[in-house]
């Protein structure tokens, strides 16, 4: 299953609902293009909802890091929501869990933006 994204606005925060696989190739490109497009349009508060992301490889991890740093460098903020066990385990192994702001409740995640 390739990756699909949908975006929605909640109280000034853009939630990107991701599903499928974030892997080298199409999945990574879709995520990269989506985040950069949002930032270019002034959407600086972004939540990546990864509830339906069932697989991610090292390239996908790299894209999450890239999205995080790109948002930060443009004065924005990017948080992760609803990690699956696989993605959670990978972020733990790679020590990125402490780098990202990871949430498991959408309403709380939206409120957590300043």
């Amino acid at each position, binding site marked *: 299953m390739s990756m699909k994204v949908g975006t929605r606005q909640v109280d000034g925060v853009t939630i990107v609902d991701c599903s499928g696989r974030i892997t080298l190739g199409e999945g990574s490109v879709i995520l990269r293009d989506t985040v950069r497009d949002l930032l270019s349009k002034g959407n600086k508060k972004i939540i990546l909802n990864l509830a339906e992301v069932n697989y991610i490889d090292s390239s996908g991890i790299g894209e999450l*890091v890239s999205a995080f740093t790109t948002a930060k460098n443009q004065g924005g903020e990017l948080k992760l929501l609803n990690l699956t066990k696989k993605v959670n385990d990978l972020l733990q192994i790679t020590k990125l869990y402490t780098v990202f702001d990871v949430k498991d409740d959408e309403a709380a995640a939206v409120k957590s933006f300043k």
Partner: protein
Amino acid sequence: MDGCAARPRCRTHLTSSMAMTEQRVSYTLDSSLETIDSAEEKATRIATELGFGDDEVMQISMAVREGAVNAVLHGNAYAKDKKVTLAFENTGDELVITIRDQGKGMNLNNIPNPLAPENLLKTSGRGIFLMRSFMDVVEIRPSQTGTELKLIKRVHGPTAGGKEASQ
């Protein structure tokens, strides 16, 4: 979907039912993104057929995917005239996976630690680390004619904390 009869470059010595006896299957694959997905699918299927648990199957398939990424991107650099050889061998005690490319080799001294604070926010450089995390043995043998990667998962071995055996 991986019927070898339909794939001229596919050499197989493997029967469709994989009991834990000595068996080996190898594939010669193009240097393409499709090869990476194909390698992962093959690893998932074979590891499942060998009876590994769900978590181990995921670890094996991800390690193979990362190895295939390195072979296609960093080894062969997508060159159409260069191939990736992927082999699975069931020794009875271990699943031994070998991935060879035809690139210029690599410098094992130049592999950064992705857990180092200065590398945490880098967008690449985690593939070998993940392989080492998921497999019992990871051997990397670079040469001027390509790199050979050997990944070993023991049938009843530890499920994490891969042992490094480079050179």
